[in-house]
């Protein structure tokens, strides 16, 4: 990877829940550039939430995280998040890197008004409450919410979309540099997903945010991301600039994922499910973890775990046969013109 001005560098991050028998985040390294939007996609259970939580050293108990999470501050100094004292970590979180959780509906204390959440967060970080609340109101207004009404409401008095936006505002109230979002729109309808995405884009530009956006919805994040990363079986398997990843991915899994995705210009009937199942942490195969499902798998794949190959500008692919994958696995939306008639005969799901 071509890291020029990274803000977060994750090195060999591993998460285990059973003292190193198995890993639910398996030796992941990745650099996030300052002010970029990284989209991380992968199917359910592939370790996306682990990846997100690792950036704040916030793996749910009793999981254990090892490796290095380097954070490059604005002033040029670098800290290893995993080396911070509890008090330093408490300050680091939300002031430098904030996180929006999967499931915003349950991210607010049900017996406390939304405004109380903002206030206590400001107080906990010794921030100026009056100034902070003014910023909160501006953020809420940026997100097209009525600040007074929202701050004075209990969480259950707001709709899911409003809670989600209020949570995004809460995550930005201390002006963090990085916002990590773990499926922030999963529980919302399509229209709301789109509008929140647009709001995020506006916020990102206005506040010069670095964003890590995690989702299983590839087209959703493709609309927003500068760079995309694909996770499979607890590890990243491909990282590339957005257009590069969508148009010229080198990993068979990414290509299958793109083909299984309905709305990237492709008609619905083109959707192709990926056969087989992703492995559980206990039986990740040696060699390439995708080998059991991969149409191109060879003996080499089963024996040697593929490292990242440089497969384009800023494009890394963990596949021994990336060239063959590009040649032999057609992408639906490329094939649309010459294959549209045949596709019509397939099931209209």
């Amino acid at each position, binding site marked *: 990877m071509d890291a020029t001005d990274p803000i977060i560098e994750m090195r060999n991050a591993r998460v285990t829940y059973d003292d190193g028998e198995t890993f639910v985040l398996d030796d992941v390294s990745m650099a996030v550039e300052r002010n970029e939007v990284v989209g991380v996609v992968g199917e359910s259970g592939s370790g996306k939430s682990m990846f997100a939580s690792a950036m704040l050293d916030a793996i749910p108990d009793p999981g254990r995280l090892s490796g290095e999470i380097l954070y490059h501050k604005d002033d040029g100094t670098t800290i290893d998040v995993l080396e911070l004292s509890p008090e330093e970590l408490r300050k680091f979180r939300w002031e430098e890197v904030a996180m929006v959780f999967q499931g915003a509906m349950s991210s607010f204390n*049900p017996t406390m008004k939304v405004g109380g959440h903002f206030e206590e967060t400001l107080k*906990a970080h010794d921030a100026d409450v009056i100034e902070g609340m003014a910023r909160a109101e501006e953020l809420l207004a940026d997100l097209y919410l009525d600040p007074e009404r929202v701050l004075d409401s209990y969480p259950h008095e707001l709709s899911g979309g409003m809670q989600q936006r209020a949570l995004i505002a809460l995550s930005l109230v201390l002006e963090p540099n990085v916002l990590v979002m773990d499926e922030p729109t999963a529980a919302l309808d399509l229209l709301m997903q789109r509008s929140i995405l647009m709001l995020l884009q506006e916020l990102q530009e206005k506040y010069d945010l670095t964003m890590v956006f995690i989702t299983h919805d590839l087209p959703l994040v493709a609309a927003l991301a500068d760079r995309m990363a694909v996770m499979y079986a607890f590890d990243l398997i491909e990282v590339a600039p957005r257009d590069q990843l969508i148009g010229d991915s080198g990993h068979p899994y990414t290509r299958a994922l793109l083909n299984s995705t309905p709305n990237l210009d492709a008609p619905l009937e083109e959707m192709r499910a990926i056969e087989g199942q992703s492995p559980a942490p206990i039986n990740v195969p040696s060699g390439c973890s995708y080998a059991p499902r991969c149409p191109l798998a060879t003996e080499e794949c089963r024996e040697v775990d593929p490292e990242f190959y440089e497969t384009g500008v800023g494009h890394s692919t963990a596949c021994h046969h990336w060239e063959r994958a590009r040649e032999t696995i057609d992408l639906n939306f490329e094939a649309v013109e010459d294959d549209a008639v045949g596709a019509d005969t397939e099931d209209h799901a």
Partner: protein
Amino acid sequence: MVNYYVRRTARVFVTIYLVASLTFGLVRLLPGGPFTLLRAQLLRQGVPADEVDARIANLQNIRPDAPLWRQYIDYMGALFQGNLGESISLGEPVVSVLASAAPWTIFVVLVSTILVFVVGIFLGSLQAYWEGSRFDQLVTGVSISLMSVPFYVVAVIALYIFAYQFGWLPTAGTVANGVERELGVPFVVSALKHSVLPILSYTLGAAGGQALAMRGNSIQVLGNDYVQVARLRGLSDRRIATRYVARNAILPMYTGFLLLLGFRLGGTVILEQIFSYTGLGYYMISALNANDYPLMMGTFLVITVALVLGVYVADLTYSKIDPRISAGESDEAY
């Protein structure tokens, strides 16, 4: 909203009215009738029939010779004015018997129920905090054992050990005989000494139950996303423990507290018998034994009204305390 409160309040009055009517029905209409015995007795003693009727009328505000509807109106009218008749066995107005008995019962029930919750909440939250530890297992074990022993067994054992064997605490009554019945240090000390065993035995098992409930609630709250988000936001442990975990775990127990208060009032019938503690429950049983129907109905009425009021207050205040429940939503909850 207003409508809801009016409906609720109306329901309280209707319930109390129905209970009062029920006591009339029991007094007047039970086969054999409660006053038949007394009447026969008096007649045997050679009291003239007229006078017997007059005395009975005085006892329960019922004139046996009047038509039923007349009797009913007289009875309810008297009740409404706070006249519950006269106790047969004690020869005193029922109201004054109740007035002297009720404070003791209220004292014991209130103190023990508050203790139940305070101890339960305290133990339960510590257990949740150290979930799976030796302490947690120990308290759970003790709680379950205590819960499985009825309070009257605890009461009898405690009475035997601490009052009869060691003689540390009195065996019966509310205050010692020699003590002046007026507010002063000797009176308070004596009253407290007499209440220790009833309160203790009425607290232990129930506290175990509440500890288990609190433990479960807290563990459930701890597993919520908002607690994890609160930690990520950098809130202090103390704020998370109080404002997040404790508050959300205790809230659901609040209505339980008021209801339990009402129900435990009924339980004093047994408790006070064991300790010869002259509260409402004690008089209810002695009235039953003495065929003292006016007193029995009086205690019954007071205990039921207390229960109804407990439910009423729980209902009206819960929506104030838990913002998620707006008044009216909990309408038919109990």
